[in-house]
């Protein structure tokens, strides 16, 4: 089958957003299809051009293609009779970011009209697709809430699972992702303070706001755990991410919208300690076998203690987590089978 993978493109941006699309094309080719990656530029810079850019995509035509797989807004709006959408990047400003502190569209007549147009276009033109897949159950619920469209969950596998490894079960638990002082970072520091063991905490990722790092340091100081909390407050390169995962005792998960972090933990033979089921890829977490799902900071402290007191338990959980992922349906073969059926 000749398959065009349609993704959005941020021109001259070093962001990682095209990588999964490239991996999908490789997977399609590995399964005997001809795949072409087509990236349509999209800039969020000025709200008044968002609708123009949606219109641009609707004015394009694709011939000589048996199937279109749409991944990102607005590229996934392209007209084609054989279209399947795997919604990896919707325009969140029109969805759940509207009305939040980080809202990017202005709450003006223009902003409101752009938002309404995006939701209407998604409803109408995603509705043309034969099937819609989403990357997580949360994304599926959101799509239904805002547009009424139904979808199926298709978890994006890791691009390169073989890159992850397990070196040891070191003396730290790892919290990866944007470093934020309000929720995740705070909960992680508070949990380590409640833990009775000597476990250390490593928080790694770029800070969400400028003063987040100082706020977290203050908090650790006040709780008397400054010497047990390490902040790596910058964007983590792939190799460093692999290394941190390879040597940690376990992974703390406060949010994993596309399931990447949980899969990386499993692939590194590490247990995932999830703060509420929706915080991780729950299908991979069997409480007490491959990790733990807790509902309070105190519970998280206890879960950290259980694994830091006994490296053998951490290893047993980690091995079970690895097996769970290997036996799961999360794989590029599954993705190809779904998108081409």
């Amino acid at each position: 089958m000749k398959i065009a993978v349609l993704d959005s493109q941020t021109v001259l941006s070093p962001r990682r957003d095209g990588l999964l699309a490239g991996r999908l094309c490789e997977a399609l080719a590995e399964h005997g299809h001809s795949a072409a990656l087509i990236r349509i530029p999209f800039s969020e810079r000025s709200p008044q051009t968002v609708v123009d850019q949606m219109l641009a995509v609707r004015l394009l035509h694709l011939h000589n293609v048996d199937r279109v797989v749409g991944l990102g807004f607005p590229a996934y709006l392209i007209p084609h009779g054989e279209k399947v959408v795997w919604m990896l990047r919707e325009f969140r400003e029109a969805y759940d970011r509207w009305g939040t502190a980080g809202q990017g569209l202005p709450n003006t007549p223009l902003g409101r009209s752009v938002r309404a147009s995006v939701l209407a276009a998604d409803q109408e033109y995603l509705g043309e697709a034969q099937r819609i897949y989403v990357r997580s159950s949360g994304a599926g619920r959101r799509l239904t809430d805002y547009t009424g469209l139904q979808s199926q969950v298709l978890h994006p596998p890791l691009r390169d699972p073989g890159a992850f490894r397990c070196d040891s079960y070191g003396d730290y638990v790892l919290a990866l992702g944007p470093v934020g002082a309000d929720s995740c970072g705070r909960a992680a520091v508070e949990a380590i303070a409640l833990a009775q063991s000597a476990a250390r905490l490593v928080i790694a990722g770029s800070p969400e706001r400028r003063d987040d790092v100082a706020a977290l340091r203050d908090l650790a100081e006040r709780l008397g755990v400054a010497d047990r909390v390490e902040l790596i407050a910058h964007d983590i390169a792939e190799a460093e991410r692999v290394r941190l995962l390879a040597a940690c005792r376990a992974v703390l998960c406060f949010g994993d919208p596309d399931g990447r972090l949980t899969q990386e933990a499993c692939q590194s033979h590490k247990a995932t300690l999830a703060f509420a089921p929706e915080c991780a890829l729950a299908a991979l977490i069997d409480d007490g076998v491959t990790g733990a799902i807790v509902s309070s900071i105190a519970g998280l402290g206890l879960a950290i203690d259980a694994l830091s007191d006994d490296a053998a338990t951490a290893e047993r959980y980690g091995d079970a987590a690895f097996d769970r992922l290997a036996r799961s349906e999360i794989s590029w073969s599954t993705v190809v089978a779904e998108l081409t059926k």
Partner: protein
Amino acid sequence: MRVVVASTFVPFIEGGSQMIVTDLVDALRLREHEVDTVAIPTISHWDVLLEEALAMRLLEVGHGSDVLIAIRPPSYVLRHPNKRLWFIHHHRGAYDLWGTQWQDFPPGPDGVAMRDAVHRFDDLYLAESKRIFTNSQTVADRLASFNGVDADVLYPPLGHPERFYWSAPEDYVFYPCRITSHKRQRLAVEAAGHLETDARVVIAGVPEHPGELAALTSLIAERGLERRVTLMPRWISESEKAELTARSLAVLYLPFDEDSYGYVSLEASHARKAIITCSDSGGALELVRDGDNGLVVDPDPVSLAAAIDRLAADPQLATSLGARAHQVLAEKDITWDRVVDSLTS
């Protein structure tokens, strides 16, 4: 410099324009420019030309870049304050091919209206460009006569000239090119029927349509030319092409009225091989001069066969024409340094 190279393409069809984009991006990166590519799919059917141009106009690609280099139509419709064009062809059905069998607009008022619209948006958006270069004098002349636009010629070099080399000529002339009617592989096959020396013809390339391959195959069979003509109707790797070029007596490039000199002639020149082309081949004539770096023949089988026979009977002539072909590259300064300087300065 932060550079955006923009073009259009048809998915799953490899074309020369994609090669220009890839090679240009490599050349820019090698000279430490920060580069991104914008490649928009188009179908270029007459009835959607306005929609596709409007789509280009509505896209946002310019922010954060110092220069936008537009290649294939209608990418020059994209908005950018510092737009440079490396213009490789018009939508030719609306211009020089209008009124010929290749006019891809219907006769009647709808076709005329759309043709006029194409002319208007070309005039409008070509005028926005800071500099316009073309890949050949032929295309520059068309821009001058149809759109009143001045353009400089910037010949596209090969991406990897070092792959091509010379070795002692054998008994065949080589025509490596996509197999399609206007490249006239048929003419090469017909010429093989008139050869008086032992020379052979080797044709290699991907057939654009199964019908074109079938026509060639049956022509070879009808005229009993199986031993004279070797047909390789498939994609050949760069190294295979380089080897077949190196061992050839000369290289054929026989398109009808092509815009540019064609990569085939350039590859031959790098391999120090003479080029045989036709007096109506278009851009190839900007590179090939009869008796200097190749032979220019009338587009008929007898004339072509005579030229092949001439080189087969006089391999020294083939060698000296080939040596000149290599010199002509330097004389015309067909280099990436020149291209990058022109497009970014």
